[in-house]
């Protein structure tokens, strides 16, 4: 049933008894043209693009738990394309353009909300770095504005302009940035992909790869039996190294925990998304009214999906330093997601050294905003066996060649990216 206000009204008459399942909960077939490991946003988007853009519909998405149970359902829902380095800039803009049409493409309201993303600066050096980045965006046809303090005082009078340790000087604004309802993105892609015949298989954990005599991957072993495939793509943020290891691969990736926080629901207080340039804090307010905020990763390798107290304090200190009016607003929930941090802070989308296995990994904490773009370029790679032009720099061998894409300039130390 197509979703609309009319179908909703019709359904209401019958007490909503006639709604079908949002996606088909499929059982594994013997083989598929393409198997995607990972039923998160990236995996489901890849399946949808394979079916809708490349006409490959004999596709299965294997999810070890329930779809969206990984980082797709744990992030702080921010979308933006305000990157500064070649490779990132145009890829994230490709993704942003896909966000802008997602709901109509999928017939599912993911609440894509372009309320703006603002990065605050507190020193001349930061301003200059933002100017460089903003100009890169503009040269690539992406919207960006450099605001001074006066403009910010008008726009966000509640920021701490008066007695801040690091006074706010201005900010880099991308008005097209914003947020999207993370779970709805997962359900929307599942809904649409399933509608095109993609099998979404939950509670199906991959336990190994099936290889032929030449070492080519020809399928996967799973908790629900062996499944054959011509090509296997992995989109398993938080488990990339573990899955790659099943194929004997070591990746330039470390897994770290990133915490996220939500406050009690309050009436509208904070307009868009803002990031504090002098501390570890960024925040937006959800449609439900909760302040959704976060900061830095906990800083050490971890697969435990929970955070530590010092980081909670660090993040709230940033919040109070920037927005002293939130002191009495209460933190409602804290949780942690596992970030696969690459060695330069930039993702890897490439064929793996193992024939038949394709990698989509190393998103650090940039994964959510990349969901539609990642789906498209990964589908392109799987369908055509060559990189999409906007993902050509996300090659695995870039570290051997010295062609890192290091926005933060921190080098091969993932916990600093």
């Amino acid at each position, binding site marked *: 049933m197509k979703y609309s206000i009319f179908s909703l009204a019709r359904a209401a008459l019958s007490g909503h008894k006639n709604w079908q399942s949002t996606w088909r909960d499929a059982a594994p077939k013997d083989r598929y043209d393409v198997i995607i490991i990972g039923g998160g946003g990236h995996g489901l988007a890849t399946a949808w693009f394979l079916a809708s853009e490349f006409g490959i519909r004999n596709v299965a998405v294997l999810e070890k738990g329930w779809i969206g149970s990984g980082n797709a359902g744990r992030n702080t829902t921010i979308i933006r394309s305000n990157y500064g380095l070649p490779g990132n800039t145009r890829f994230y803009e490709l993704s942003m353009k896909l966000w802008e049409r997602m709901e109509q493409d999928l017939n599912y309201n993911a609440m894509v909300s372009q309320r703006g993303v603002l990065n605050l600066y507190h020193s001349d050096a930061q301003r200059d770095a933002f100017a460089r980045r903003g100009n890169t965006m503009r040269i690539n046809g992406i919207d960006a504005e450099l605001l001074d303090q006066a403009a910010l005082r008008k726009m966000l009078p509640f920021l701490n302009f008066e007695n801040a340790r690091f006074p706010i000087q201005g900010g880099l604004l991308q008005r097209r940035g914003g947020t999207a309802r993370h779970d709805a993105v997962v359900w929307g892609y599942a809904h649409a992909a399933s509608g095109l015949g993609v099998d979404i298989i939950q509670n199906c954990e991959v336990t190994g790869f099936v290889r032929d005599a030449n070492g080519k991957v020809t399928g996967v072993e799973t908790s629900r039996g062996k499944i054959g495939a011509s090509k296997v793509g992995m989109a398993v943020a938080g488990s990339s190294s573990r899955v790659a290891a099943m194929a004997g691969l070591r990746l*330039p990736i*470390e*897994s770290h925990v990133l915490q996220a926080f939500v406050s009690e629901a309050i009436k509208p207080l904070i307009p868009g998304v803002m990031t504090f340039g002098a501390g570890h804090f960024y925040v937006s307010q959800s449609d439900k009214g909760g302040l959704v905020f976060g900061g830095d990763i906990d800083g050490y*390798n971890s697969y435990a999906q929970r955070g*530590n107290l*010092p980081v909670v304090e660090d993040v709230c200190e940033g919040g109070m330093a920037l927005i002293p009016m939130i002191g009495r607003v209460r933190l409602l929930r804290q949780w942690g997601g596992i970030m696969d941090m690459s060695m330069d802070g930039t993702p890897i989308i490439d064929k793996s050294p193992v024939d038949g296995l394709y990698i989509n990994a190393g998103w650090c904490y940039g994964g959510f905003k990349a969901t539609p773009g990642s789906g498209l370029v990964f589908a392109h790679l799987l369908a055509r066996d060559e990189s999409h032009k906007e993902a050509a720099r996300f090659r695995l061998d870039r*570290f051997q060649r010295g062609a890192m894409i290091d926005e933060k300039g921190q080098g091969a130390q993932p*916990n600093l990216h």
Partner: protein
Amino acid sequence: MRIICPFCGERELGEFTYLGDAKPQRPAADAGEDAVYDYVYLRDNIAGVMSEHWYHGGGCRAWLKVTRNTLTHEISAVEPTAGAGAAKVGA
């Protein structure tokens, strides 16, 4: 998390800085690009017990080798690195 520094005793996480996996050994001076690439970039990224380098910068400034489970954060052993307490070598 609390780390028992072999020199200072049990201390709060905030006193320590993390570097990463302590297993990769720095290749010899004459090692080639591949060996150094492997050392600098490739990680086992262990889900389980891992040996790590931590720096007690907020305390005695010793670099430590910490054995920690990345699934539970449980710390099973902490020892000084070779150069921490080097005045006692040979003694």
